[in-house]
């Protein structure tokens, strides 16, 4: 059967390479990164041709005598192109393009152009570069990188780090792609703005910066980026719920939902709100991941590069000089792993051993875990680092933060019983009704992350890690006040060492306070990819917790 392909007006349906905004933002100078869309092409030849054209034009535009300082600074186009080249030379998944970019940069340097240098090394400041950028990475991983590169024009550092777990990454990527780029109730620029609002709550300048760029590309009004006060009232109305979901999701009530949905000029539709909620929770928990893995700024963003040659001091901060594992701690750490293995085995084998435990005791164990989580506050001595204004301007009421809901002497909000409102039964059913595709993808993502295992633990192989994973998952939910009736919270105590608990609590509740010390201090003998795995569990558990609270509020609103 023949099919008429009258694409629109008979034109060739070449999809939009970049949103119109990108072209609009083009600087008047000839050298603008927006013109080199061909670099993100799948086709090798196209890339090659674009690359050659770029090189020619770049070299032509620069007199052989080089540019004076003043000219350099004036030419924003050149500046941006240089950053583009630097970024591609580091993170382009196509080897030959990567190489050409480096060559071009060197050629430019030869002409006396000040080229930018990368600050820090690799995508993460916690993980050594070699861990992440293994040569000849698995094909699955590479394929997703290419997918990401082709559709968004960059492989960001988050994607690189997640690439350690390709199975999860593909699920994560599809969800994020759907949320940000596919059809949905919210216009694209607003989605990015919501992402900015969410990330700003955790002072995550990395995500804020990333999405400021995306926001402009999607045709957003630059005015809005001045701060929340410049955004339309409708988005500002979201601030309250954003604040609550970020720090104390258990406080969300149907009144909050009602306030947003009540008819009026700036009201939200239910479908829009669901998408906004998913976006908010997604970016809150992604901020956790960014801090938890110490994601470095993107090379071409502020703080990711410098035009001066690196000073010796900045070299120190590279994680290559790993101090944690080596030294006297080595033996202890080994033992820790053995002990943990032993405990897991015990728990798995003799579940019945503690038959005598009364229900009251189980209850107190949960309460204990909750109250104990109070004690694992991160050391207070970490100075409140002053934040750049461009992040703070998206935050209203910055003092609102995570607060333990079980403070002694106060009436605690009732514990959320996991069995009464589960993701599988209730959450999914609701979300699937209001924003269908995303429900399916989230469901898949939760399942992938919950069941992800390589049956390894540090140097051991063939280990059933399910109890450990469940302990981490349930501990995160516990920190947010969600209780599983069928879980013995004593296990958490046995399986999670104190330093790990501190780390989990910090990353889940106040990620901005995470330090490199915390990261290195837990599970000292485990592989980095396993620590990233912990972070993934954290990310998803946190997202699910917040989503459950939000969806329960919506359900209550609807009934």
């Amino acid at each position, binding site marked *: *059967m023949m099919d008429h392909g009258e694409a629109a*007006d008979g034109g060739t349906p070449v999809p939009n390479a970049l949103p119109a905004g990108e072209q609009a933002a083009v600087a008047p100078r000839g050298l603008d990164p927006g013109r080199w869309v061909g670099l993100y092409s799948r086709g090798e030849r196209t890339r090659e041709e674009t690359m050659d054209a770029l090189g020619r034009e770049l070299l032509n535009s620069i007199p052989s005598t080089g540019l004076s300082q003043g000219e350099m600074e004036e030419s924003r186009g050149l500046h941006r192109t240089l950053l583009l080249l630097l970024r591609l030379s580091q993170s382009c998944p196509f080897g030959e393009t990567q190489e050409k970019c480096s060559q071009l940069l060197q050629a430019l340097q030869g002409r006396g152009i000040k080229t930018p240098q990368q600050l820090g090394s690799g995508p993460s400041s916690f993980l050594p570069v070699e861990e992440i950028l293994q040569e000849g990475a698995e094909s699955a991983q590479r394929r997703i990188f290419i997918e990401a590169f082709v559709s968004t024009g960059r492989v960001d550092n988050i994607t690189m780090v997640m690439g350690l777990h390709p199975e999860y990454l593909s699920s994560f990527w599809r969800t994020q792609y759907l949320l940000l780029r596919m059809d949905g109730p919210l216009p694209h620029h607003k989605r990015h703005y919501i992402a900015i609002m969410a990330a700003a709550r955790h002072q995550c300048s990395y995500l804020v910066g990333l999405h400021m760029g995306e926001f402009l590309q999607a045709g957003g009004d630059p005015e809005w980026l001045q701060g929340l006060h410049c955004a339309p009232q409708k988005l500002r109305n979201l601030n309250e719920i954003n604040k609550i979901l970020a720090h104390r999701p258990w406080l969300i009530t149907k009144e909050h939902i009602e306030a947003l949905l009540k008819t009026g000029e700036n009201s939200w539709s239910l479908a829009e709100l669901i998408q906004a909620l998913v976006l908010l929770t997604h970016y809150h928990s992604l901020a956790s991941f960014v801090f938890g893995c110490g994601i470095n700024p993107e090379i071409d963003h502020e703080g990711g590069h410098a035009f001066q040659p690196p000073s010796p001091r900045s070299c120190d901060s590279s994680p290559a000089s790993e101090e944690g594992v080596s030294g006297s701690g080595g033996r202890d750490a080994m033992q820790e792993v053995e002990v943990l293995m032993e405990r897991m085995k015990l728990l798995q084998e003799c579940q019945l051993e503690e038959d005598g435990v009364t229900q009251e005791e189980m209850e107190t164990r949960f309460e204990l875990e909750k109250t104990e989580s109070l004690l694992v506050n991160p050391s207070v001595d970490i100075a409140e680092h002053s934040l750049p204004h461009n992040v703070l301007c998206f935050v209203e009421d910055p003092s609102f933060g995570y607060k333990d809901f079980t403070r002694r002497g106060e009436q605690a909000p009732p514990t959320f*019983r996991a069995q009464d409102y589960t993701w599988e*039964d209730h959450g999914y059913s609701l979300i699937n009704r209001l924003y269908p595709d995303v429900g399916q993808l989230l469901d898949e993502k939760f399942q992938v992350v919950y069941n992800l295992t390589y049956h390894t633990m540090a140097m051991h192989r063939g280990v059933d890690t399910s109890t450990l994973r469940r302990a981490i998952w349930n501990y995160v939910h516990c920190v947010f006040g969600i209780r599983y009736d069928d879980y013995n919270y004593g296990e958490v105590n046995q399986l999670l060492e104190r330093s790990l608990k501190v780390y989990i609590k910090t990353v889940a509740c106040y990620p901005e306070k995470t330090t490199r010390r915390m990261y290195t201090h837990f599970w000292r003998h485990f592989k980095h990819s396993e620590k990233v795995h912990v972070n993934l569990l954290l990310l998803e558990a946190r997202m699910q917790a917040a989503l459950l609270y939000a969806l329960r509020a919506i359900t209550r609103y609807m009934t």
Partner: protein
Amino acid sequence: MEKMARVTTALGGNTITGRTMFCHLDAPANAISVCRDAAQVVVAGRNIFKIYAIEEEQFVEKLNLRVGRKPSLNFSCADVVWHQMDENLLATAATNGVVVTWNLGKPSRNKQDQLFTEHKRTVNKVCFHPTEVYMLLSGSQDGYMKCFDLRKKDSVSTFSGQSESVRDVQFSIRDYFTFAATFENGNVQLWDIRRPDRYERMFTAHNGPVFCCDWHPEDRGWLATGGRDKMVKVWDMNTNRAKEIYCVQTIASVARVKWRPECKHHIATCSMMVDHNIYVWDVRRPFIPSAMFEEHKDVTTGIVWRHLHDPYFLLSGSKDSTLYQHIFKDASQPIDRANPEGLCYSLYGDLAFAAKESLISSDSNRKPYIGDRRHPIFFKRKLDPTEQFEYISSSSALSVFETDVESGSMDWFVRTAKQYVLAGRPLAELCDHNAAVAKELDRNQVAQTWTMLRIIYSSPGTVSSANLNHSMGKGSASLPLMNSFNLKDIQSGMGSESRLDRSKGESRPENILMDSSSTLINNDENEETEGSDVPADYLLGDVEGDEDELYMMDHENPHAEEQEYILPQEAFPLRHEIVDNPSALDHLQDKADSPHVSGNEAETVSLTPVESFSLISISHSLYENRLPPDFFSPIVRDMLLFYAEQGDVQMTVSVLIVLGDRIRKEIDEQTQEHWYTSYIDLLQRFQLWNISNEVIKLSTCRAINCLNQASTTLHINCTNCKRPMSNKGWICDRCRQCASMCAVCHHVVKGLFVWCQGCSHGGHLQHIMKWLESSSHCPAGCGHLCEYT
């Protein structure tokens, strides 16, 4: 509860009476179960575990099983079941994974009998064996099912589903050894209780978790399942492979299903989320529930028929903390509220009419449809004689009435749609052209309307002075005619213009005169009501327009010529054939977003400046004091409404587009949208895709405009490797070849491209058409038998 029915049923010696009633529980219920004698019901939830006696007028709390100062989690029940053999025996599934049995015969306050703490996760379901007193089955979140012998301390056997969490377990009612288990991953497994090593059978029933299942009480082979995918499915398990025999699509995930006693095809369902009602479906009529109970205000969590052999009483517990007894007499029947008649016009004026059979048969005596009823088609459904609980006969009849071929012909519609020009030229020309088209099709009224529109809105300068003089003379000549027709005549004539044409239109020019003069009257009267002194020029001007029309009629030949020139007009300017050259690729890259490019092209066409202004002639002064076009807006609006009312939405929309801003603000957006959608719908039913697309593009309604911005993606395969193309460009990234080559001439195709869906090959529309005229094989030589339709 206005309508309280009291129902009495005799079942053996046991009489059940009652009415719709409810009682407040203290806490949300998770599950309910009923005692064998139908006189007591147990309600279980996280914070409630009570037994109620069902009395005639009310529920009476009989026993609170939740005792102790600080009730433990063992009392937090996910499920409860009352043994159907022993009325003292109950079992609950606790959320913490414990299975508890309760003996009501115990003398102490605490009736707890046995505790089984073998499951590691929440137990979702417990089930007693229907005939064996001591056998209890449980299904848990940890993926295991366990069978307990109540005389022993531990489980007798453990069944591993080898997959995800177990959501429901049910003993087969007839097969002593068989039970069914449903899983979170969508599977259903059948087990033999004697063989714990592996399941007898497994099949995938639903997409996503299967929340519940129920064996048919009579038919041993039927199993109903309900899932998160909002479906209720009935499986016939008698055959080797489980066969889906019925499927009911509900509006929310299905939490429970329960076959209705004594009714072979009825099943009750309630949902997990959002929807609070209980439905009773006849599985053979899956589109509308046969009964509905709407009492609950939060999701229903448990439903159970009060007695094994009584189909009239349904008990339900809910998250809204109420326990209800529903009586079938009080059920609302959605079918009563549904409109039992359906009516639809086909494109060609045929009318299909479906209604309950009783309605039709009473009508048929009258036989009012004279010749039109060519062959009414009837669909009848036989009543199932065994079905005693059918409330409303579900048989209906469908009749199709055909209009006679002549009057129903929609030829004029298609031709008009094809020939009208809606944009791209000055208004006057558009009007003239469209008037000519209408006239060609003998639609004089429409033609007149176009002409008048031109006169009202276009600059008068376009008319040459010679023409004007000409018209002055004739105009006065036509005046006497005014008296011979009155307005009312015209109004009635307008409705069915073709008839009018035939009856009065012996000579066409006369007919036109009539039309024009009558409209003149119309204008005249308007003038008078305004109470202004009518400037003579104005009147003349008006007549001039008609005269112009006449003038054109006189010269048949030029008219025909023009017609010819217009005919091949397409909905949008065809792209000129592009000379294929090897460098075409570069172009492709440049126009990365080419879908927009073509759009712009069309716009520029429509925006060509109106050239006629320079032609303003001497006669201009004559028209200085002519009325502004705004003055006519109400009339034009009425005219549009009139045509729409008459069913000629084509005219309405065409005028709307041609006049554009001149009239748009006069009509509210919603009406316009309505017109547009009607017209577009009609065009598409006639498969006039190009025209409908043009209309969409030209429309100024936002809602319409974005119609063709949806689903603009076209997925294509690479012609070379047959795999889906990536989303960028025309070059396949696997085999690095250009995919848009014409299979016939081997050049890059720009413009219209036609593909075979079977083998992914294609090329220039003309080339492929020509090729397939002579050959049935693919021009690329791949051996595929392509077909061009």
